[in-house]
């Protein structure tokens, strides 16, 4: 049986019934990697021994008839900007090429705590900056649906690995859409929880006020299971909320009667590709038939989200990435005569073009004379956008939009003009600006069979409602069951 094709909840059930062992599942996934990784190139580092050790420990538990946690023994992989003790964590950058953290991220500890066999670290856009995974120092990950196309970014490896069954589920990070957009491009479920629900301790920072860790899974049920594992207060993260997360599996109800869905007109405007628009309209009909009310409305500040996002994220990134200087860890140039050289050469040689561009942008936006016009202004616009969402949520329970304006584009298609690439984020950035939870689920395919994702946005801390809406959609459609023909 092709164990690697199954979902986490299916595999978990089989494990519990002793129909299969964790080692068997893990080996199945590892074999799949052997066959497919050379085409997809989703992994930066593979840790098969470590995964099998953990799997064996789980099997020992099972043989002693001990109780298992829901995701225990199910092999998974982690985006390479999340620290794993003793395992290289590179952010897909030359400047951290050989960095081995001596500590785990909070989420890594949680996963180790449930004996999740960790298969490896996944490819991404360098320092999470990008929407196509083409900015990785190491390799370009391919979209499993079409190896000439991008998987999306920055969690391209996380989405592609789940889409191609090289991991049963994975963790990614999302600053402006980096989980949701690749999920949409690769036909999997990508969830970014409310800011503060998942600890950022050990997530190598890109933009501190926007970054969140989330999940890439094969369906909404698995998403709920992962959320149960990774959410929760962490005393080491001051921005971690002190809310006790609910049991997200309780949200998995096939029922949207009376659910008030709002669709902002600005998100179905000119920038959106027609096949994407059509898929969204069809999805809206599905919801309407199931008893939800759908209403179009306007969010006038929408168009300002993207410029505000680029100013805020670049500014924070310019500060967060200043620590990479060749002194404490990471790459150091051989080419220096004094300290000043050491800094400049190390950073210029160690960072890729997109990272340098954003550092420059961010430094400019914070610099003397420009702070008010750019950074401060962007933070004020941020307030306006948050207020817009708050007002919308007075009327609606869920806001529905496309996840991305296009389907997966060809590798190299958008790399000449940075601004073109930034426009891929127009549907997703406003959510990070407002700190809200949002999930992308597959809702169709375009004319050439590329996946289309629908974004469900919830009120702050209301992951439950979007999980319910997503689960209901899955129960009434088959899009999530489609896999690429790899």
């Amino acid at each position, binding site marked *: 049986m092709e164990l690697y094709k199954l979902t986490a909840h299916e595999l978990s059930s089989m494990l519990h019934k002793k129909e299969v062992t964790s080692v068997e599942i893990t080996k199945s996934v590892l074999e799949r990697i052997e066959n497919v990784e050379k085409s997809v190139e989703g992994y930066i580092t593979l840790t098969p021994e470590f995964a099998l050790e953990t799997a064996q420990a789980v099997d020992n538990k099972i043989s002693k008839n001990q109780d298992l946690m829901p995701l225990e023994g199910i092999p998974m992989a982690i985006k390479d*900007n*999340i*620290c794993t003790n003793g395992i290289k*964590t590179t*952010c897909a950058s030359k400047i*951290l090429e050989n*960095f081995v*953290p*001596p*500590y785990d*991220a909070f989420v890594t500890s949680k996963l180790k705590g449930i004996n999740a066999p960790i298969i490896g670290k996944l490819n991404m856009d360098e320092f999470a900056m990008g929407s196509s995974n083409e900015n990785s120092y190491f390799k370009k990950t391919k979209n499993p649906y079409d190896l000439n196309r991008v998987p999306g970014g920055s969690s391209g490896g996380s989405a592609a690995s789940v889409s191609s069954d090289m991991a049963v589920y994975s963790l990614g990070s999302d600053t402006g859409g980096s989980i949701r957009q690749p999920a949409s491009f690769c036909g999997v479920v990508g969830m970014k929880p409310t800011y503060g629900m998942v600890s*950022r*301790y*050990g*997530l*190598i*920072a890109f*933009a*501190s*006020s926007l970054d969140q860790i989330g999940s890439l899974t094969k369906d909404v049920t698995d998403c709920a299971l992962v959320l149960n594992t990774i959410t929760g207060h962490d*005393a*080491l*993260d*001051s*921005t971690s909320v002190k809310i006790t997360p609910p049991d997200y599996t309780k949200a998995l109800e096939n029922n949207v009667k009376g659910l008030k869905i709002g669709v902002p007109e600005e998100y179905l405007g000119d920038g959106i590709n027609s096949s994407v628009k059509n898929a969204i309209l069809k999805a809206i009909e599905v919801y309407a038939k199931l008893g939800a009310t759908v209403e179009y409305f306007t969010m006038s500040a929408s168009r300002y989200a993207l410029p505000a996002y680029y100013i805020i994220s670049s*500014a*924070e990134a*310019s*500060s967060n990435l*200043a*620590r990479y*200087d060749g*002194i*404490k*860890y990471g790459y150091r140039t051989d080419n220096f005569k004094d*300290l000043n050289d050491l*800094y400049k050469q190390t950073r210029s040689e160690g960072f890729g073009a997109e990272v340098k561009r954003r550092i420059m942008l961010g*430094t400019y936006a*914070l*610099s*003397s004379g420009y*702070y008010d016009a750019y*950074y401060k202004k962007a933070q004020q616009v941020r307030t306006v956008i948050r207020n817009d969402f708050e007002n919308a949520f007075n009327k609606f329970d869920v806001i529905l939009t496309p996840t991305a304006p296009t389907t997966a584009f060809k590798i190299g298609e958008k790399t000449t003009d940075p601004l073109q690439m930034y426009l891929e984020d127009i549907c997703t950035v406003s959510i990070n600006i407002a700190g809200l939870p949002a999930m992308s689920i597959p809702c169709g395919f375009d004319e050439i069979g590329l996946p289309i994702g629908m974004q469900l946005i919830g009120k702050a801390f209301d992951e439950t409602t979007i999980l319910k809406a997503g689960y209901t959609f899955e129960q009434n459609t088959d899009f999530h069951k489609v896999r690429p023909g790899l």
Partner: protein
Amino acid sequence: MNYETVIGLEVHAELSTASKIYCGCPNEFGGETNTHCCPICTGMPGVLPVLNKKVVDYAIKAGLATNCEITKIGKQDRKNYFYPDLPKAYQTSQFDLPICKNGHVDIEVNGVKKTIGITRIHIEEDAGKLLHDASGGNTLVDYNRCGVPLIEIVSEPDMRSPEEAREFLETLKSILEYTGVSDCKMQEGSLRCDVNVSIRPVGQKEFGTRTEMKNVNSFRAAFRAIEYEVKRQTIELEMGNLITQETRRWDDEKSASYSMRSKEEAHDYRYFPEPDLVTIAIDDAWVAAVKETLPELPNARKERYIKEFNLSEYDASQITSSIHLANFLENCVALGANAKSVNNWILSDISRLVNEKNLEQSEIPFTPEQLAKLIKLIEDGTISNTAGKKVVEELFENPRDPEIIVKEKGLVQISDEGALLKIVTEIIENNPQSVADYKAGKDKAIGFLVGQTMRATKGQGNPQLLNKLVKEELDKR
């Protein structure tokens, strides 16, 4: 042209918390390099800060002790610059919403009272240390000090002389020591001072261009640095040059300041609100709770000493300027010793020896019990004052019961009138010239004779008695 000096001071005090500001590493001076560190204070990838509540408590306390307003809603900000002692390449500090503002400190210089404004007090983290490697010509970086909590106290440019600056620093140090928020040890770097100096023609309203001086490592150095800088700026202006706004490094050994060109570019700190740390909301209840913990401050204590112990304004002021000395005095008085005597011993011999031996005022090696006992031995005539001084010296070397010291060193004074009278009689008979001198009106002769009797008793004669007996005997003749 007559110029007026304008001085502003920025004082950094390391807070004496147990742990660092954003992590649980120990806040300890010294130790082997990089052994008081963790991924958080060394800026490793992915780490996050969490603010130590005591740091805020201490900042509020320092603010209340200096009459500041406490900010109700504050935040922390990043100050971005590159330097090897700063692992994150930014210092987490406070920019526009510091915890305290608009305070003041009262000083007195040459009998003139003055109020020096405190613009603000904010919290921030300390940086590491650079060590110069003897062999390879490299610089070594030790992060032990990274993340040690600091308060930065910024004065208004209200000081007009090096004396005022020094007095402000002494007063501020004294207040901080009283609150217990910092141990204020300049030699250990727990109290540091940057000096801003400018001059302007007398009568001009606008301030002149100021320079900032760093590496001022003692209050004496601050005094000298200000004197030097005023001279330097005066010369520049008189030559028709402009003063460059810059940061200069004070070199105490060379008694001069030098321009620090490398710091020139660091002006654009690109401050922005720290996204990893949340709002600090200080309500009235919190301020009240900290206020409860405020001890009697130096000024109040001084007034009390004048009233209760009858000390002079000068003495009370001197002794209360140090909480350690003041505590020592009160402990002695609590044991029954006479306050004025205690005060005199502390301000004279004891302070002198503390300085000579390079000790801190908190490091007096003997106890209040021992001093109280010593004073009693002098009061009841067992030993003379001079012998007392010897005992004090011994208490510094080998502190133990003064009675034992007196016995060991044979310091018991001879107060037996009979024994002394014999000696006095002998000396008088052996010095007829002196007797004649005295009779002729030369009072100095008594001194000589008393001196001789002291010699004869090997210094152990009770001086008051000897004086009395000599005079009596002389008057008899």
